[in-house]
């Protein structure tokens, strides 16, 4: 009984400490990021029907404790600014007929099959059910393509693989070689670098957690085509999102745009 009372007090103290830390952190946010999350103006051509549309995967994550889509989960990180910036870039750089706005899809309906290109962010937090894993497998086998991004270090990798290995139990994650077509299809990406997230402004590092070295990973289908492109220890989403931020190095944004275009055109040709 006594122990129980101490335990409750400890919990309250931790909670108050956490709130205070969070408040303090917010106050310490860098000044140039203050307005960075301001909503984007809605594009005037948003209703245009196009060949390609940025499809963001909505998934259930470990940190969502209250119900399914009850709270904004990690799936929506950088949205919608990242995809809208990327859409503008793809329009300018390619002949792909691109829609200015994004679409959110999940693995609980068949709508996902109308979007053969899919982006999932912070998959170091995702937690697919068996049914969702099976649907993602079916999606990829029919010809869909998944790009995953913005997860870092050993722990998040393990969480990512916990679900991914149920999607493809028999297909290994490989390191995509520099000479692979995916890195040369539109731009020659021999000079790839680790794409850092906004966190580098706090830490001064281009990596997060223990994810020091970037990984250009992939999963191939039975014909050798890459169907899952894995950007581990990187954050291309931040590079797209902060493309209009003078403080964010242009070389990272530029590289992230080129990688996205290569991945997209690879998907549309393989």
């Amino acid at each position, binding site marked *: 009984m006594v122990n129980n009372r101490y335990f409750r007090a400890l919990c309250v103290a931790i909670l108050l400490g956490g709130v205070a830390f969070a408040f303090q952190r917010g106050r310490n946010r860098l000044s140039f990021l203050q307005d960075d999350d301001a909503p984007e103006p809605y594009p005037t051509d948003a209703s245009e*029907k196009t060949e*390609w549309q940025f499809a963001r995967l909505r998934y259930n994550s470990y940190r969502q404790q209250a119900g399914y889509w009850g709270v904004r989960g990690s799936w929506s990180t950088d949205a919608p600014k990242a995809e809208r910036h990327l859409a503008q870039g793809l329009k300018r750089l390619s*002949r*792909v007929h691109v829609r200015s706005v994004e679409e959110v899809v999940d693995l609980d309906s068949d709508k996902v099959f*109308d979007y*053969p290109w899919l982006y999932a962010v912070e998959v170091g937090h995702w937690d697919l059910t068996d049914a969702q894993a099976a649907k993602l497998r079916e999606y990829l086998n029919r*010809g869909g393509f998944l790009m995953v991004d913005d997860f870092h270090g050993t722990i998040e990798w393990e969480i990512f693989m916990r679900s991914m290995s149920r999607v493809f139990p028999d297909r290994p994650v490989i390191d995509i070689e520099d000479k692979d077509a995916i890195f040369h299809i539109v731009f020659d990406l021999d000079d790839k670098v680790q794409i850092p997230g906004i966190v580098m402004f706090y830490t001064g590092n281009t990596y997060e957690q223990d994810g020091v070295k970037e990984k250009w990973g992939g999963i191939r289908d039975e014909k050798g085509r890459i169907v899952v492109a894995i950007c581990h220890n990187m954050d291309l989403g931040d590079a797209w999102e902060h493309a209009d931020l003078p403080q964010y190095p242009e070389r990272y944004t530029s590289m992230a745009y080129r990688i996205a275009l290569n991945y997209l055109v690879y*998907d549309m*040709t*393989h």
Partner: protein
Amino acid sequence: MFESLFLYSSRLFSKGELLFASGWPVWLLVVLCLAVVGGIGYVVQQRHGANLKGARWITIAGLQALVLCLLLGMLWRPALRVTALKPQQNVVAVVVDDSRSMTLKHDGAAANGASRVAVAKALLNDGLLDRLRKRFQVRVYRAGANLERVAGLDAVTGGQTTTHLGAAMKQMMEESASLPIGAVVLLSDGSDNAGGMDADALGEIRRRRIPIHSVGLGAERLVKDIEVVDLDAPQRALSDSRIGAAVTFKQYGFSGQKAKLVLMADDKIVSSREVTLGEEGVPQSETMLFNVGLAGARNLKASIVKIAGEENENNNAQTRLVNVESLKPRILYVEGEPKWDFKFIRRALEGDRNIQLTTMLRTTQNKVYRQGVENPKELEQGFPDKEEELFKFSGLIIGGVEASWFTPQQQAMIKNFADRRGGGVLFLAGRGALSDGGYAASSIAEMIPVSLVDRKGTFHRDPATVELTQAGRDSLMVRIEEDANKNVERWKKMPYMANYQETGVAKPGATVLMEALPTSKGRFPLLVTQRYGRGRSAIFATSGTWRWQMSQDVKDMSHELFWQQLLRWLVTETPPQVSANPSRQVLLDEGQIDFRADVRDKAYNPMNAATVEARILGPAGSAAMVPLTPDANQAGIFTAKWDAPKRGSYVVEVLAKNGKEEMGRDVFTFMREDGVAESFHAEQNKQLLEGLSRQTGGNYYTPETAKTLPEDIAYSEAGITTRETKDLWNMPALFIALLGAKAAEWMLRRRWGAV
């Protein structure tokens, strides 16, 4: 009866010429008749007009005038002038069909009935020959592959494996040059391996003016029989491709019953199904799809398993050869922008080991991404600007790339690609395609199988479903289910396409196989094909079929199958530089065959300066070498005649050289079958026999009506003839008419009180 009334047979009347033999002018007869009619009319009206109503005195006058006019006509001596054969100075050729089909029963219904040849011999031996000999010199012949004179009917046994009636009759006409042949009597069932009488032979027979009188033997329709009439399969196919074999069959006596249809390739069953037999005598057709397998000559046999009670089981199968080629035709696909269909078409073709897809995709304004090139240099400079470079491909797909992207020279090359090279060109939809791509105003428009509407905004990213047209239901190109009805239903259930493009109406000669039904409005031609020069062109007005793949189970192969079949259609008939063909794929009981080669240079212009020879590999390892000679009338065409000596399969490789340089080679197959054809078309071909007699001035008889034949054939314009005039004034029919008219007049006058 006819002869009792008119003295002579109706056939004599049909051959003769009616005239008046008195020598008095005919106009005088006409004037007298008119005078008689007028005079009698006047007298009767004066005498009886008051008592009889108009119609009654006119009837009385008419009957009286008829009697007088008939008498006047008889005074003028009506007669029939005919040309008749001089007795014993003319030859009548009796030709008996000696082919194996003559051993079938004459009357199909009689289980123990006599054979056709036995009926023919009995008819001749039981008096017909003797009566003919009383009037003419008679020569007996038997007809098989050739015409052969025989001493007696014992030599006719029905033992020959083949009949060529046309050739036999032609040979007879040649004999008539040295013989006074007055008529030919042909006893036959009309079964002919050559499929009937060719115009050449018929023309020659008519020129000689020798009447051919035919006596038809055999039942006009069999009582219980199933016959596989035809097996239609492509002569060539790419290895590992799925092709269709159309089996046509007909039956008598089994309507409504089930039968098993089996298709075998090299003695292995590749498809079988149960069919319900339809209406008697009406051909019905079933299409069976199968994979032709690896390269080589494939012996295809379609058969219907014998049903209990069937009269003739030897006509239950047909055989064909399919030459399965190991070619890997290449298709060049030019696309103006990245799109999902591009990816999924490529994926669909990855399942086809025999078609090589080379693609050029404009990824950015100035970048073209190439896939499937043979070497890094290929197409490095963009779309080919030399015919030799473009003509290496067998098919061309033009996606959403604007017409102006091609130079005028390249546009001309694209047309020549189909027209001269014989390739297939497929146009797809897109923002920069068809009308939106400016094709309506380009020179390429003439090869597009629809009349494009000349405006922009025809491409719509709206859902549209597919519906097969009647032509589409019959076409194997869009057959994703083997059964035609199931195929229609399957297409109805296909997921909608992501987009469609408005086209114009199909051009004359083009075939619409599919229509797009947008959810928003109307319907538009979707898949349209046409011949264009030596090649073909098609339009497929969507780029949204990727939904067929993404919206269906991964195991569903309809998307892959559709594209594989469409693109195989695009290239299968694209000829190589040297293409060769036989005149017939199956020789029946004879070896005569023609070879034809079409030789072209690298730009596919006809080339005469070539040495062309055929290397033939026949049954049991036999081999031959035959040179082909240039055709004087057609540039680039080389021909040869050859005689296949034995039954079996033949493989022919045609090789063309220009000096020492090899220009190309082509391989084809054919087969010779002996003793098979006579089992087919076993019913009497009355149409052939009747037509032959009618066109030569003869008559058609059955064994029962042939008794009058000796008299009928006495009148002919061939041979040594004389002109005969036969009086008709004494015909009983005239006297009966006179008596009848007078009796009728007497009876009417009594009745009407005008005596």
